[in-house]
C-alpha cells in the first residue's frame, strides 16, 4: 500500500541511520513523489465543539450544526460526539444522510477519552470504548476519530505515561484498521504537550491507522517548531487564532505556510473557543480559515 504517513514515519526512523534509504522504498513511486509536496490540499471544516454552548444547552442539535456548514460555506463538519443523542445506528445514519443530501462532508468525529491509565483494566476499558466509537464512525461513513492522550497520573513519569498510551492505542488501532478508520491523537497538553512525545507514541504504535489531530493552539511554548514537527503525521487539524496558556496570538499565515511546505492534505478544522458568543465568533474564525485555504490550497 502506498501510504504517505507510514512511509514518512519509517523514513524518520530509518533516516537517522541512513538518509539514502529512501530511494529503495517501494512506496516512493514516481506518482507518489509527483503528488506529495507540490499539491497541498486544505479542505475547510468546523468542529461541533465550536458551538458547544448552544449544543450543551439544547439550543442547537447535531442536525442544526450540520446545516450550519451550508451557511458557513465550508466543505465539512467534524462531529464532536459529546452531543450525540446516541450511538444508535438509525440516529447515526440519519446524520450521514442529512449531510449527504446537503453536500456536507464529514472530516471525522471526536471523542472524550484518556489513553494514559496506569491500571491495565482501565486501559482495556478504554480500548473497548474506542472500539464502540470506531463502529459509530464507520456507520457515519467517515474515516477518523480524534482521541486524547490524557494526563499522566500523579507520581508517574512521562516515559511511563507514553508506555500506557502506546499499550492502549496499539490494540485500538488494530481494530480501527479493520474498519478503515484512523485514530488521530490530539496535541492537547498533558502527555501530548510536547511534539516529541507524540512522535514517539506514533513510532511505537507503528500503525498506518495512527496519526495526529494537530491542534495548533495547545502549546506552552515554541508553537511553530512543534507544529512543523507534527505536520507530517497530521490527518486533521484544529484551528484557533491563539495559543497558550497564557493566550498569545498565532500567526495563522505562518502556520498555513508550514502546512503548505509539508504538502499537508486534509481538513483545516475550526475549533472555536473564546469568550465572544459563538454565533458571531465562529463565522469570523471560519472566514480567516477560508481565506488562508484559498491562498494556499491547490483544491
Amino acid at each position, binding site marked *: 500500500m502506498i501510504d*504517505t504517513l507510514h512511509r514518512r514515519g519509517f523514513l524518520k526512523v530509518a533516516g537517522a541511520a541512513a538518509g539514502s534509504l529512501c530511494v529503495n522504498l517501494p512506496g516512493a513511486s514516481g*506518482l507518489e513523489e509527483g503528488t506529495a509536496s507540490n499539491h497541498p490540499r486544505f479542505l475547510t471544516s468546523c468542529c461541533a465543539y465550536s458551538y458547544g454552548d448552544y449544543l450543551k444547552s439544547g439550543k442547537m442539535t447535531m442536525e442544526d450544526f450540520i446545516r450550519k456548514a451550508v451557511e458557513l460555506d465550508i466543505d465539512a463538519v467534524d462531529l464532536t460526539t459529546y452531543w450525540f443523542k446516541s450511538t444508535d445506528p438509525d440516529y447515526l445514519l440519519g446524520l450521514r444522510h442529512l449531510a449527504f443530501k446537503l453536500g456536507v462532508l464529514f472530516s471525522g468525529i471526536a471523542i472524550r477519552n484518556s489513553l494514559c491509565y496506569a491500571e491495565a483494566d482501565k486501559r482495556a476499558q478504554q480500548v473497548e470504548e474506542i472500539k464502540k466509537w470506531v463502529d459509530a464512525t464507520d456507520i457515519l461513513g467517515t474515516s477518523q476519530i480524534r482521541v486524547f492522550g490524557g494526563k499522566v497520573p500523579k507520581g508517574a513519569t512521562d516515559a511511563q505515561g507514553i508506555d500506557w498510551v502506546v499499550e492502549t492505542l496499539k490494540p485500538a488501532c488494530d481494530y480501527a484498521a479493520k474498519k478503515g478508520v484512523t485514530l488521530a491523537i490530539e496535541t492537547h497538553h498533558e502527555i501530548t504537550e510536547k511534539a516529541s512525545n507524540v512522535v514517539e507514541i506514533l513510532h511505537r504504535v507503528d500503525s498506518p491507522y495512527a496519526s495526529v489531530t494537530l491542534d495548533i493552539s495547545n502549546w506552552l511554548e515554541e508553537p511553530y517548531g512543534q507544529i512543523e514537527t507534527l505536520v507530517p503525521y497530521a490527518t486533521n487539524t484544529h484551528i484557533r487564532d491563539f495559543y497558550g496558556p497564557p493566550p498569545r496570538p498565532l500567526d495563522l499565515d505562518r502556520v498555513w505556510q508550514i502546512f503548505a511546505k509539508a504538502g499537508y492534505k486534509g481538513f483545516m478544522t475550526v475549533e472555536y473557543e473564546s469568550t465572544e458568543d459563538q454565533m458571531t465568533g465562529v463565522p469570523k474564525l471560519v472566514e480567516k480559515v477560508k481565506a488562508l485555504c484559498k491562498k494556499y490550497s491547490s483544491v
Partner: protein
Amino acid sequence: MNTAFDRRGFLQAAGLAAASSLVADVRAGAPPAEGTTRPQPRLLTGCCAYSYGKYLDAGKMTMEEFILKAVELEVVGVDVTAYWLKSKEPAYLHNLRHLAQKHGILFSGAACGTEMCEPDAGKRAALVTEIKQWIDVADLLGASHLRVFGGELPRGATAAQGKDWVVEVMKPASDYAAKKGVTLGIESHHGITSMAADIIEILHRVDSPYAGCNLDITHFPKDPYAQIEALIPYATMTHIRDHFDEPRPDPIDLERVWQMFVKGGYQGFMAAEYESKEDPVTAVPKLVAKIKTLCKKYSSV
C-alpha cells in the same frame, strides 16, 4: 428531518396528482420549508474513475493510482467506478478508503453497472442481490452514494412495463441502502432513463429518501436543458462532459448548466466523466479545469 430532500419528497407527494405542474413548482423555486437552510448552491468538484477507463482497462492505471490522480487534478472527490475494483474484499476496499483519507480525498460515491429493467422476476431478484453487494462496497469505502442504471427496454415491452420492473428492483434495493446510509442514484443514461419524466415517475414510485438521480447531463435525446432542469431537484450526483452524445455531439453550454444547478440549489458533486477520443491523460485535466472554473464561479463553497 427538515432536509431539502424531504421538502422535495413533500413536493413529490403533493405533485403526484399533477406531475407536469410539479416541475414548474420546483423551477419556480418554492420557498424552503421552515427550519431548512437556504438552498445555497454547493458544487463540489469530482472525477469518475471511468474518465481514465482506457488506462484502467489496460492495467496501466490501478484504482489506487486513480485516487492519487485527484491530488494532481486538484478535485475534492473521486467517484469509484466499480468495473475496475480488484475485489469486493473489505481489506482491499479499506485500503482504498485509507489511501483517500491520507490524501485528503473524499469519495463522492461508487458506480456499478447493474441495469434494473429486467422482465424476468427471478432475474430481478438476482439484480437486487447484486445491487446490495455494491451497496456494501460503497459502505466499506465510506461512500454514501451508488450509481445504478435503468437499462434498455427489451424488444416488445412497453415503457410502462419497463418502469414497473425498474421500480420493483430499485425499491427493495433502496430499502437495503437506507440501512447502510447509502443513496442510490439512477443514472439518466439512455433506454428506460432517456427522458426526465420517466426517471421522475420511477423515483416517485420508489418513494424512498435513499433513491435519487445520478444526473448525467449528456445523454438526453431531445430538449436536453429542459430535461436537466427537471431532474436537478432529484439529483444526488452529477456526471459532466462538455458535449452531448452521438449522433448529435453538440457542445454543451456548461455555463447555462451550472446556472440551472445554482437556481435549483443543488448541493453535491459535479464529477467529470470524460469519454472522447483524445487521450484521457491530456483530456481529463482540460475537462476538470472547466468544471473547477465553473464551480469556483457559482459554488458557495
